[in-house]
Structure formats: C-alpha cells, structure tokens
C-alpha cells in the first residue's frame, strides 16, 4: 500500500472543510496486515455518504471477514479535486490513505440517478479506466449496488458487476469468490464469469443488448434475481459505526427497524422492489439502539425504514427507549410520519416538549388522484391529523405533493390548492387566535418521475413545458397568503426520469456530459441541464423518447432481465386498477395481494421478528 498522506496534507490548508479527508474518526478501522482490501465508495460528498446506512452496514459486514480490510472513499469536493489533479494525487481511501486503484474491490453505491456523472469523476480521479471493457488484471474489480441497480443499464458499461438487492450476505460471497479465483491467477473474464454465478450479481459484459433488452450470452443467468435478506434479525445493526467529526446530513445512530413496505403506493419504486416487509423484534431494536449509542457517543438515534410508524411494536420500542434514555439528553427520531392521529401521538412521545415541525405526504390533492396512486389517505385523515397536531402545540407543518401523475387533470392540481386551503383553515381553528400568526405551512411540490418495476413503468413523464403550465395552475389555486410554496427543480426531475428508464445508450451521454464538466449534479448550484442536452444531442439519443413516451405493455424494457420477484402481471393489473381509481390494500395487514415476491423468492412477511405463516 502506498501511503499518500504526506502528499495530501499540504493540500488541506487551502480547501473547504478538510475534515472530509482526514480519516481518524471514532470507529474507523485500520487493519494493516489485510490480504484483501475492499473500498466502499459513495459517489457524492463525505457529508452525504457518511449518512448512508448501506455503507455503514457493509463496512461492518466486510470487517467481519478475516483478512479483509474495509475502507471508505468519497467524492472530493471540487476545490479538493482540482488540487489533487494539479498535484497528481490520485483519489485515495480514508483508512489506509492509499490510492483507490490499489484496492482489490471498489464498491460504488448507486443512491440516485443524479450521481451518475460523479461515478465517472471518481473513476477518473482514481486513474481507473472508466469502462469495464478497458480494465486489465491490474485494475480493481469495480462493483455497483444500491437503489438504482434495479435499472442498471445506463451505468452498466462502467461496472464489472452490479449487485441487485440486499448486500449483507452477498458482499461476503462476492469477496470470497473473488479471492479464490484471483489466487488461482485466472483472467479477468474468468473472474467475472465466476461472479456471475453469485445470486444477485449482474455482470453486464456477459449480456448482449442488441435486441433492446439484455440477453445472456450463455454463462450468466437469463434473469438476475435480486438478493434478499429473508430475516433482518440475521444481521445485527452496526454496533460501532464510524462517528464523523464533520456535521453530516444525518448525524446520528441509525437502526433500521424494518425493511420493505407494502402499502403499495403505485409511484414508489422502493415500495415495490424492497418487498416483503421484514421487521426486527422490539428486543433487538432496543438492544442495538443502546449499544450503538454507547459505542458512538451520539446524541440522537433514528429508527429508520420506509415507513417506521408501521412497525407492529413501535409503541413498545419507544416506551422502553424513553425509559432507558431518560435524563441523558439523547433524542429518538423517526424519518417519516404517516398521515394519521397515531403519528401525532408518536411525535409527541418522541419530542418531549419540543415541537419543531411535522412533515406529511398526501402526495395528491383529490381523492380520485390519491386512489389512482394507491395512497390510502383521505381528506378527513389529513385534516384530523392537522387539527390534532396544531391543538397539541405544533405550529409548523410541511406537506409534500406531486404533479404530473398518470391521469392527472387540472382539476386534480387545483385540488392541491383547495386541500392546502382546508389545512390552513383547520390549523387556524386549532390554535388560540393570539398564536395564529405563528402558523407556518410549507408546501413542497415535485414532478412525478416514473420508475422501473412500478405499475407506472410504462407511463410518460410530462414534458418541461407541461410542468411549467401545471405549476402555474397550481400557483393560481393556492391560498394567497401564509403558504411557503417550494418546487423540486423540474429540470433535475426530467434528467432523473431519463436516467431512470434509459438503456445502455445512456452511458455515452453520461460520459459526454461529464467530459463537458457535469459533476455534483444533485447540487442545485452545480447542475446545468444545457450541458446534458448537448450530451444527448452529441450522442444522438432522444431523451423524450425515453422519459416522455408511453410504452406498450408488451414492449421490451431495458430492466426486463432484473427479477425483483414482482410479476409483470401484477404490475399490469395494478396499472389497470390505477386507471379505474381502484385501490389495493396493504398485504402486511390484510391478505396477500399476489405481487409474486414471496412465492418467487421463497420468503415471507416477517412481523415482530416472526414469519406471518
């Protein structure tokens, strides 16, 4: 290993927030005599990457393998990247401060589509060939994984392999297969062929996409089935995660209390691809929270999941934690709240006397629209929740909505304005007149982005012109006073939509845009749609035909070879029910609704740590 620190240290005097690059955090592992080094790379700034739970979980999984050293690397901020290029310092890992290119394995997270240009920046700074096809025996194995892996095609060319699904067990298997074949001195192609046999591992070079969807060339399976951790209880939540010095995005202990969500919102990719619901038991949650706090010294713990208020033993967990943490000043938080009275009760339990702000996501303004997307929230639910929250002393709420949903009409958009008005009135009625001036209602509006493996995967995203028109309809329908209206940048959503459902042709576009300076696209001040438009033009790719075109049900989809367990029949029926505004219940509480995941993957819903059957 080459220690780059003496060359990095002089650069730190002139860059912003050098704590990003210095390592030495509590919990960082330094294993000098490892035979195998695996770097976990987050393709964005340190302060975002250190908030990523998957990195923390996999770090722990790797550390448990004898002879393996886990390391971390992040995308340096622009000022640092410039200094590094200027001084010929390659991208380095934090723990051993050695070049990323000297690792055996480089695992890059795919957290959101807007990081795709960052991946190229990372590979380039690391002096690793951008395309898997150009790598040789001396290059590390570059593996991707994470939420965006469910349509891996746009970035397939940059990865030797991509893991689909849960990584806890898969990462150990990948490492052990890689170590074994590497030791026998075989070619890179043979290494990749061996990896393609690991369940959940997709090796893009072993597929041809000439026919529009990926077809195995022989060695690799026809469809890659997602990896699934049947029971979260099998892997402990990280006990001693790395404690950043820098104030990162979520600076706290996180314990994932359940994985999956089967409420069945039809726009939500996470809700579709992470099925079925698997809960940890109350006992293990309490144990892991206390252990994590003791080992890290954090002042906050978050009980995370897609929908934490759904955990069947949540009240018990919170009661036990509040008893154990009394007098310590440590706070417990939940990342998301449901629109119901129970959630307000929970918020009250969590906050003690504190009443910061509450966030709810009705997503759509009319009942018809909410039925189309299967968001099982009624106007009464929302207004009742708002009344309860404001009567209980909260004065600030934020509401999330989407525009551009399939079947949406102007009446649905005006419905958002009407609903917000009712919320405002309900809030006013619920607080004493003297306090009404303190009421703050935030409304955040995003453009709907259709995603792969959802019932809306065949739908068109509305064009930018149409977004602007609908925004003005919405603006006109909003109460004139007392509302803080904000928009998620529609240009960003447009690019996200193209990336989310594109095929391998997108790789050239990403490379072109990156060469023209695209990087840190998720940071508003760094994003330029113009640069991406030029890249689409230069590569002869029409973004509208990818993002804003309705697909036929029988059309071959770029992600068709990725098997999540959802049957395409289920997705199609859900799409038809959406057209008719018929809702589908949550299979966690009611009966199985036949999505196909449990029988296909041989698993079951797990509540309170026990299989439901």
């Amino acid at each position, binding site marked *: 290993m080459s220690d780059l620190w003496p060359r990095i240290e002089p650069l730190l005097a002139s860059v912003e927030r050098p704590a990003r690059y210095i390592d030495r955090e509590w919990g960082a592992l330094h294993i000098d005599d490892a035979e195998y080094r695996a770097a976990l790379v987050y393709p964005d700034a340190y302060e975002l990457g250190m908030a990523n739970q998957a990195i923390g979980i996999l770090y722990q999984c790797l550390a448990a393998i004898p002879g393996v050293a886990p390391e971390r690397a992040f995308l340096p901020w622009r000022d640092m990247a410039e200094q590094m290029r200027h001084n010929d310092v390659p991208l380095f890992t934090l723990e051993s401060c050695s070049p990323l290119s000297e690792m055996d394995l480089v695992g890059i997270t795919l957290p959101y589509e807007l990081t795709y240009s960052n991946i190229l920046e990372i590979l380039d700074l690391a002096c690793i060939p951008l395309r898997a096809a150009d790598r040789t025996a001396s290059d590390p194995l570059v593996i991707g994984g994470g939420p965006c892996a469910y349509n891996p095609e746009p970035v397939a060319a940059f990865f030797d392999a991509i893991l689909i699904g849960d990584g806890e067990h898969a990462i150990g298997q990948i490492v052990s297969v890689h170590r074994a074949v590497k030791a026998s001195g075989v070619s890179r192609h043979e290494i990749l062929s061996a990896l393609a046999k690991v369940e959940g591992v997709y090796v893009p070079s072993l597929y041809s996409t000439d026919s529009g969807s990926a077809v195995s060339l022989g060695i690799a399976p026809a469809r890659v089935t997602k990896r699934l951790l049947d029971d979260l209880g099998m892997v402990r939540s990280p006990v001693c995660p790395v404690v950043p*010095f820098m104030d990162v995005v979520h600076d706290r202990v996180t314990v994932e209390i359940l994985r999956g969500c089967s409420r069945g919102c039809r726009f939500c990719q996470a809700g579709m691809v992470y099925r079925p619901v698997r809960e940890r038991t109350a006992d293990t949650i309490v144990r892991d929270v206390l252990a994590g706090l003791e080992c890290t010294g954090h*002042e906050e713990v978050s009980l995370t999941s897609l929908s934490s208020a759904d955990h069947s033993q949540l009240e018990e967990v919170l009661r036990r934690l509040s008893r154990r943490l009394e007098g310590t000043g440590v706070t417990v938080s939940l990342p998301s709240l449901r629109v119901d009275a129970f959630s307000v009760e929970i918020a009250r339990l969590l906050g003690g006397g504190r009443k910061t702000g509450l966030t709810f996501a009705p997503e759509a303004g009319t009942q018809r629209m909410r039925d189309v997307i299967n968001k099982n929230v009624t106007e009464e639910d929302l207004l009742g929740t708002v009344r309860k929250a404001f009567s209980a002393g909260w004065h600030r709420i934020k509401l999330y909505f989407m525009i551009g949903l399939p079947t949406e009409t102007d009446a649905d958009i005006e419905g958002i304005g009407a609903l917000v008005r009712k919320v405002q009135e309900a809030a006013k009625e619920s607080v004493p007149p003297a306090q009404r001036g303190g009421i703050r209602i935030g409304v955040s509006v995003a453009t709907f982005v259709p995603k792969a493996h959802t019932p809306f995967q065949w739908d068109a995203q509305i064009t930018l012109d149409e977004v602007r028109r609908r925004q003005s309809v919405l603006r006109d329908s909003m109460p004139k006073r007392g509302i803080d209206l904000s928009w998620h940048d529609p240009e960003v959503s447009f690019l996200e939509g193209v990336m989310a459902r594109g095929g391998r042709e997108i790789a050239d576009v990403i490379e072109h845009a990156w060469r023209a300076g695209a990087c840190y696209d998720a940071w508003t001040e760094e994003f330029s749609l113009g640069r991406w438009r030029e890249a689409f033009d230069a590569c002869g790719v029409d973004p509208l035909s990818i993002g804003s075109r309705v697909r036929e049900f029988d059309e071959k989809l770029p992600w068709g070879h990725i098997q999540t367990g959802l049957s395409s029949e289920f997705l199609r029926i859900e799409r038809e029910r959406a057209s008719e505004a018929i809702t589908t219940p949550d299979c966690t509480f009611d009966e199985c609704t036949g999505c196909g995941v449990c029988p296909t993957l041989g698993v079951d819903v797990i509540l309170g740590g026990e299989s439901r059957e």
Partner: protein
Amino acid sequence: MSEGLFRLRIAYPKAGRLRFLSHLELTTACERAARRAGLPYAVTQGFNPKMKVAFGPALPVGTGSTCERFDVWLREYVPAGEALERLRSSSSIDVAPLDACYVALRAPSLAASLTIATYDVVTVGGVSVEDQQGSLDALVKAGELVVEHKGKQKVFDLASTLPKEPKVRTSNGQTVVEITTRMGDRGSLRPESLVMAAFQRSGTSGSVLSVTRTRLAEEEDA
C-alpha cells in the same frame, strides 16, 4: 432535569490530523467522547436538554494545540483520575485528554477568563533567525497591523494585542516564532498573520508550515 454538582476541567490537545477540525467539530468530538466514557454528565434545563459543557477560546481550522480545555458538569462524583482514564480510552489519540481536575462550581468560565494565548509558528523560507527577529521587531515597533480576512479589514493595535514581544528560535532544525496574543472581544489576531506580515515587510518569500497553541493563560498571568 439533573443539576450539575461537580465541575470537571479537562485539558486536551488538538494534534496530528485532527488539527484540521473546526471548533464545532472539535467540541462535538469532546462531547461524544464524554458520552462514550459513560461519565454521569448533567444536562441543561429546558425542552431541548443537552450535555452541560463549556469550552475555552476557539481554535481555527488547521491550528493545533497542546493546551485546550473544557469543563463538563457531572451529577455524580467520579475520581478525576478515573474520569481521565475513561475519557482517554474513549477519545481519538490526537485529542485524548491529558489531565482532569475538579474546579469550583462558581469559577469563571474558560472562554471569559482565558484571554492570553501563546503559539508556536513554524516557518520555512530560508531567512535567518536574526533577520526574521529583526523584521518582527520592526513590525511591532510600527505599532499597527492591518489584516484582511474574507474581504474585511481589521486593524490591530500591536501594543495592546501583544503582551510579549515575538521571539524567534530554532528547534529541531526548524525556525519557530513564539507569539503571545491577547484575545479581544472584537476578533483575535491570528499569529500567522503577524508572521506573514513580517515576511512581507522584509521582502522574503517565507511561509508558515504549522501553528500550534502552546499555552492559554488568564490576564493576570500575562
């Protein structure tokens, strides 16, 4: 809410790579170490209870120290030696506490009482010790130093800012300037600004390699 009955004063360094921490990052690290050490710390009153701690004067990013201090209030008595051991084993080595002792509950705050700070500024640039001393002396004699920071100009009256004359020495083959400053309410003079101004004045192209705070003192000790 728990009353703090004991006030433990911790001395700790800011060394190695951790000198790149900001003041906020450093104080958070100290608080987390105290929690990991399992000290029976007191918390503040109110809706948002926090560990009851107080820190000495802030250090900028990049400046190291051998003499930082913080106070933590405890609900229960823990022998100072034991508290020190527990803190040391819960801290990154570069900020691991060096000493712990109890102080009077009513003792004045660290930030208010520690107003005199001494720094070692290591320089490179091939100027002789005598020349560097000479240009610093001339600078001090001039009486005033204008420093530009983030587009703003600040004027320091050197007679009141420097309770002692800067002194240049060699140590382990390095040229070290020892500077003692008085920290004011309206910003403190960064020792490296003084050294760089002296370089400029003498027309040499020296630069600062590192800055380390070596002593924090009260006014009467100046």
